[in-house]
């Protein structure tokens, strides 16, 4: 193309590396006690795995950083088909593996892989591609919005069937934000918002465990050892941290198994306990920094595809971070959702870093300030 390639956005790059480093350290800190006992018997179990995933992810990120993003347009359709194929495949017994009552993983030899994470990125690429082809159609509901909404709804529906409300919500939110960014009519989006809320309400209503979680959010003390357990212990961990925290590796409440999902969904509570308010704010600040730099890339990118692509990637990370921290601080009901860059989890980390690689590549072509 006609654009001159520059070095990627350094601040963005550094922000991501910092978040990633904090993540690896905190995954280790939060998991080593748990991993000391059977079945792991190895305090470094999670650290080693997360490090390996980080290396894979970073490699992917560097590759994508140097793979010019407009080439992705070519792959947009194929990726979408592949994403749906995998989302369907994971639901088929024998192919998908279930853990903790949810069928989310595809086994690939020694590794397991979450199609939902992959599909998130694919949908972002496809939506950015589609919207950038006819940017003016965005105000037209049937032609500009409906196709993406249908695709989104289908993907989110499949993810919900696993069931994985958190990822479904993130996916839907990301696409809606992309539509918003692309200039969709606020009336349309408002109507969609109402519909979305209704859908979420229905999802909660029809699934007893979601209903329980939602009620626990409203009154966690009602069942402190049952449905309120997550949120109460999360709050106790955060509260134990105070301003400066108990010190790295010194968190007692989060570490000693009172806090569930300590190295994944509730890792922010570990940060809050061990690194205190200062550490938690640092993480929040890094996310704000990431969003700022990311959206700046989106704004300064000359072409609409790059702009929407960047916006989608940043939105995905941003929504996930906000929902996750919202859950951990009991501002939102519990939905199983990880904190990007920080939570333990291979697929999520790899695809988030791939996304960041694409974002960094976009940044190489954005107009200098």
């Amino acid at each position, binding site marked *: 193309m006609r654009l001159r390639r520059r070095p990627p956005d350094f601040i963005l790059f550094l922000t991501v590396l910092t978040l990633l480093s904090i993540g690896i350290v905190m995954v280790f800190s939060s998991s080593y006690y748990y991993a000391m006992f059977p079945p792991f018997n190895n305090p470094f179990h999670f650290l080693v795995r997360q490090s390996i995933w980080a290396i894979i992810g970073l490699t992917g990120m560097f590759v994508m950083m140097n793979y010019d993003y407009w080439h992705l347009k070519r792959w947009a359709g194929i990726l979408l088909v592949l994403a749906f194929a995998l989302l369907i495949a994971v639901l088929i017994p024998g192919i998908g593996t279930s853990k903790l009552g949810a069928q989310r993983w595809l086994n690939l030899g020694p590794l397991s892989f979450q199609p939902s994470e992959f599909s998130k990125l694919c949908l972002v690429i496809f939506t950015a591609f589609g919207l950038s082809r006819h940017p003016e159609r965005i105000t037209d509901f049937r032609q500009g919005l409906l196709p993406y909404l249908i695709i989104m709804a289908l993907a989110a529906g499949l993810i919900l069937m696993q069931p994985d409300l958190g990822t479904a919500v993130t996916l839907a939110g990301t696409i809606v934000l992309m539509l918003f960014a692309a200039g969709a009519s606020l009336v349309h989006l408002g109507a969609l918002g109402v519909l979305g809320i209704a859908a979420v309400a229905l999802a909660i209503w029809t699934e007893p465990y979601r209903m329980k979680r939602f009620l626990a959010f409203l009154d966690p003390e009602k069942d402190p050892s049952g449905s309120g357990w997550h949120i109460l212990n999360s*709050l106790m961990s955060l509260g134990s941290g*105070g301003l400066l925290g108990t010190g790295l590796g010194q968190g007692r409440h989060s570490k*000693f*198994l009172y806090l569930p999902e300590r190295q994944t969904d509730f890792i922010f509570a570990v940060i809050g306990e061990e690194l205190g308010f200062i550490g938690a704010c640092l993480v929040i600040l890094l996310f*704000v920094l990431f969003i700022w730099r990311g959206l700046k890339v989106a*704004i300064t990118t000359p072409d609409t595809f790059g702009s929407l692509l960047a916006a989608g990637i940043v939105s995905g990370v941003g929504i996930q971070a*906000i929902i996750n*921290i*919202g859950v951990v601080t009991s501002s939102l009901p519990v939905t199983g959702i990880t904190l990007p860059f920080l939570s333990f989890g291979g697929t999520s980390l790899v695809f988030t870093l791939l996304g960041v690689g694409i974002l960094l590549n976009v940044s190489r072509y954005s107009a200098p300030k």
Partner: protein
Amino acid sequence: MRATRIVIRRRLTLLFLLATAAFVALTGRLIWIQFVRADELQQKALEVRMRDIPVEARRGDIYDRNGQLLVTSVSTESLYAIPYLVKDPRRTAEQLASLLDMKEERLYQILSRKSCYEWVARKLKPETVEKIKGLNLPGLFFVEENVRYYEYDSLAAHVLGFTGIDNQGLTGIEKTFDRELQGTRGRIVVEQDATGREVPGALHKYIPPRQGNSLVLTLDRTIQQFVERELDRVVEKYNPKLAVIIVMDPRTGEILAMGNRPTFDLKNWMTAPQGVWDRNPAIWYNYEPGSTFKIITTSAAISEGVVKPDDQFFDPGYIKVADRYIRCWADGGHGSQTFEQVVMNSCNPGFVEVGLRLGKEKFYSYIKKFGFGEVTGIDLPGEASGIMIPQEKATNLNLATMAIGQSIAVTPIQLLTATCAVANGGVLLRPHLVKEIRDPEGNVLKTFQPEVVRRVLDQDKARQVAELLQAVVMKGTGRNAFIDGYRVAGKTGTAQVVGEGGGYVSGKYVASFTGFAPADNPRVAALVMVAEPQGGIYYGSQVAAPVFREVVRDTLHYLQVPETPGLEKPKDPFVYFDQPPVKVRVPNVVNYPLETAQNILREVGLSFVVRGEGSIVQAQMPKAGAEVLSGTSVVLDLQPPGGKSKEGLVTVPNLTGLTITQVATLLASMDLRLEAVGVGEAASQNPRPGERVRRGTVVRVEFKPGTSSLQAPPAIARPVREFVERP
């Protein structure tokens, strides 16, 4: 195209602002959690993580007044489980079931509970502990606890009391002084993870328990043993429903001994019926004191000056109050006597008169001053306060009966406390059982001084009452309590048991004695109460007084109280020992009704011994006309010579001097018929006394107005049963 880019940029800026706003909101949320609620949440988190294992404190010891150990604590082991460490709950339960004598299912439940700490069995026998340790079962642990050990199984059981499984005092001193004895429970606080594992570098806090304080009682083990011994004898002899002995130091209010029957073994209190261990009759049992209460009447009367010891009284054998006749226990009455003799003889009409002289207000004020109607405040749980007719409702008849110890219920401790007030010169003291509280190192923390409740009598008045009570033991109804070498003061009492409905239960009596010694300088006061003795003997003078004598004599000797030289028990009870015996002629009492015969003998200063059954004296020994020393016993034989007449012959009694009603009753009892002539007292009769006649024979009796003004009471014909009072 251009327009879209602008829209996108604007929208993206908006997105950034929205995201920032969301993060600012979340930061606000964090401030709320990590600052505002931090302390509360941190505390809660700590509570969730910390497991408290209580460490029992060793319970304080209990000593008698001389430092003799009565109750101590010995360590024992208790078994607890940490369920998640129990490998195989089912098998473990199976192995333990027989050793612990517990149901396997119950053990399994305990062992499979989702908790970090469960008691399996407390306070095990050493051999059981060894066996369980030998099994080497994972997840089971022993912790040292302590258990009460009693030096003497049932010595002062009701006083000492016992403890529950958590060493909490349940009865007696153990309960009253539970807070002193229990010490401060220690704790082991351990930080654990959510599955119950102790975490590395766990916060460990050992708060050591503090042993409880020791108690030094006022009880004297040796005196208590005297009491227990005598109680055992009482049980053996009379098998009563209840028996109580209390020994008190009248100078201080200290309880030297307190015992009850039935009693129980402190080690195995659970095997005794609840009614036995859950109340202490010495402080709880309400009973009519009967004549022992005359101490109060006497005190009030002497103190108020309504009577002096040498005031003259006349007892015709009854006294009429309102429309009721109150009889004296001695049929025919005591005749003319001084007040001292009234006390000595426990003469009911005399006391009724004194009570009426006192009047309701004064009498009640003394009853209350002596502490009746309220608890004494002794340091034991479960004290009763007695029952009293409210002053405003009391009638003259109530007053009269209260003067002889009826229509009022008291507890043994109340009566003894009141007795002590007379003994010590008129001061009512609070009875107490604990002398000192000492810390585990033996330092005295608190000493309980004698506590004066109030002055009841002036010293000289109290002395006068004490002297009167001394006379009771020297020469009156309390002679069985006499102790060689000591001046003993006291009073007997026999009362009928008041039933559920309030009326008297016939054949059920409470025999009691309360007194002190030496009378002029009291060291020991004691009360003996035997409720419902079996076997026919029930007089306080016969049942309770000898017990008092045994306990107090041994106690005086044990306390090395010097004897008063030359003080011996008078041989002739109805004769003043300081009056030299005089020669008297034995009167004829053959063919007289027994009561008349006894009165005749009494009048001339002779004693008597009754042999056989019947109502008419058939023979006497020595014979009439013999000259003997006053005080000699005349044997009165009631059995007709040669056994009961086969032909249905009876001996005509001497009826001289009897009233028409008495004659009628007497003859009727012998199946003889009366033909009465005239009014007054029997003057002559036909057939003559001593003649043998057939049953059904008519005896003609001439009555003439008698020389004495004594009007026959209708009491015999219409006995007022509930007012019969005996010494």
